[in-house]
């Protein structure tokens, strides 16, 4: 692998008494898509939420180890979490548009970062929506409520919302699990496009999806990162028996 953008070293996380992440060490390559797969409760989402410190919002979580982003440890207490989350955006499992208009949803991010010029905002909204392949569907109703969109459109809106603050990394937590196959296909195409400009880390239950969209895949099981390699290697020549069993559907 070449120069990594994120590197986790000996990352451990406890939730209450539960040792949810155990000694995770991994390097994420820039402008590639990395998939995290594994059975439910293996810690994929927890790991993902470490990368932008979303776990801070949950009580009784204890973390040690380090995660370096652009050379600085984001787990250290003096990290500017707000700035970190601008750099590392996140798309959630269920679409969570704000109860505002489509335009306001996209403009929200730039606004909180201090952009108030109407023209500039217009440009950002248009660019983000186009980038998220949603512009053609919504350009004539930008000021209607985002809650009137379909689930797939809402999820692309959430992606556009993330793009509007120009992050370096985009975390996706099972972005398609609440969507139908057609909407899923659209999101997958979108991910394919996104990796030209962004580093994408995606958590998914769906192994075919991981195989289709990612360059690297990590297989997690019971809080451990069992195997992490290029997607082709993981799916065609896994080194661990556990990985092979999971990939071939013998458990999980």
């Amino acid at each position, binding site marked *: 692998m070449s120069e990594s953008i994120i590197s986790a070293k000996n990352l451990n996380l406890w939730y209450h008494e539960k040792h949810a992440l155990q000694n995770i060490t991994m390097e994420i390559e820039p402008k590639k898509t990395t998939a995290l797969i594994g059975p439910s409760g293996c810690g994929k989402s927890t790991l993902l939420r470490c990368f932008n410190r*979303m776990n801070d919002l949950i009580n009784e979580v204890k973390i040690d180890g380090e995660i370096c982003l652009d050379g600085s440890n984001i787990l250290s207490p003096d990290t500017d979490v707000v700035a*970190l989350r601008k750099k590392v955006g996140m798309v*959630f499992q269920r679409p969570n548009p704000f*109860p505002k208009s489509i335009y306001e949803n996209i403009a929200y*991010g730039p606004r*909180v970062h201090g952009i108030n010029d109407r023209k500039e905002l217009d440009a950002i909204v248009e660019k983000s929506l186009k980038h998220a392949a949603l512009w053609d569907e919504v350009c004539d109703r930008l000021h209607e409520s985002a809650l009137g969109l379909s689930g797939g459109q809402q999820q692309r809106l959430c992606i556009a919302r993330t793009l509007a603050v120009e992050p370096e990394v985009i975390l996706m937590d099972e972005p398609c699990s609440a969507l139908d196959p057609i909407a899923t296909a659209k999101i997958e195409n979108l991910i394919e496009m996104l990796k030209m400009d962004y580093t994408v880390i995606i958590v998914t239950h769906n192994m075919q999806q991981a195989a289709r969209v990612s360059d690297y895949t990590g297989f997690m099981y019971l809080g451990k990162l069992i195997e992490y390699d290029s997607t082709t290697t993981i799916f065609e020549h896994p080194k661990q028996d556990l990985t092979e069993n999971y990939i071939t559907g013998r458990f999980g």
Partner: protein
Amino acid sequence: MSEDAISSVPHEFREGSLAVGATRWETISRVIVPAALSGIAAAIILGIGRAIGETMAVLMVTGNAAILPDPIWNVLSPIRTLTGTLGIEMGEVSVGGDHYHALFGVAVVLLIITLIVNLSAVRILNYLNEGRNSRKSTGPSFLSPQVLDKLRTILTWVLAAAGAIILCIIAPLWISLPVIAAAAVWYFYGRQRITRYQSEKIAFGLLVTASVIVIAILVFILQDIVINGLPALSWEFLTQPPSDLGRAGGIFPAIIGTLYLVCGAILIALPIGVGAAVYLVEYTREGPITRLIRTGVDLLNGTPSIVFGLFAFSFIVIYLNFGVSLLAGQITLALMVLPTIIRTTEESLKSIPQSLREGSLALGATRWQTIKSVVLPPAVPGIITGAILSLGRAAGETAPIMFTAVVFSSRFLPTSLFQPVMALPYHLFILATNIPGASVNKYGTALVLLIFVVGIYSVAILVRNHYANKIRG
């Protein structure tokens, strides 16, 4: 409030239960009510607290004879309540005398009684909540599930017994006893012999009866006031100051005074209450401190309004030397409605999905930005509801303002915050108790007060709906 608690039970529960072939009553009694139990219990606590602390309504009908009923269970004997004593005598004693201090003693006793009622209710509430969660939580528990179950059964019986006693006391005399007895007999012996379809019908019948009784009471009160009050209503009545001790003339200063009091109270209470609620929900983590604050707010909520009045009288009016004034009344009412505003704001903030907060934070918004533009706007209808409830309550309260803000008769409107005002509920109270021969104006005042309160409610509901529509876009 019970309705809120019941309707907040997720629809899935209902469908899940009906889907396994339970009858509607079985669904209600085994699934929905247990899930809504904490809300219902909270409603009952508030109800009891309110009943103990009520001054004015009790003052008018209990007779105020300082005697013990003889025999003690004679519910037709006149009695005197703690609140009544305070309400009557406080206005007549000199500040600083023995009598004055004795009245504060009475207030302390009253406060302690309500504190005990409320605190034990809060305890029961927490206990029920913990009991329900204990199966899931991994936290240390020295009570085994069996013991817990047994305790819960005992508690339920204690509650039921308390309920039965209260029922016996407040029920319209002995007429209802046979009904209760029949219900008890049915509960113990008849249960097995009645099929589930019959019990479905019986339960449905009882529920309908309860609703009819509630509506009947409401209709009865309304028609009494409207029929008697309508003749008094005229343009002069609404725009003239009173004359001849309120027997003639109008109630204009009282209307304006109430308006001033209520608006001032809400202006003071809303920022403080919303601020406290936002802090509790958004900035703190659940822990002993937030529990303490919450219990404090609950207890404050159950504190009798006359105690607020007394406190404000000694602290604001006398110690801070505000005098009997509009401002003192506004502050007193604000203190009284503060807990309601805090709790309702808290509830509406909690109902905003966590995913919206996460979505905003994940974009790199600060916590305050998130609260300001994502969490608060959809919570506004709920906050307004809380303000409505408290507005209505503040408008109708007499006890907190009778020593702090009002005079019975004033020909002029107040020109500053430090002058006393007239207020509708106090005017009504005096007309009803101290001025013979003011029957027409009395009912007229009651009607105006009623319309006033209903008006507040409907305006606020309109505002709320407007907001709700705007958010849906």
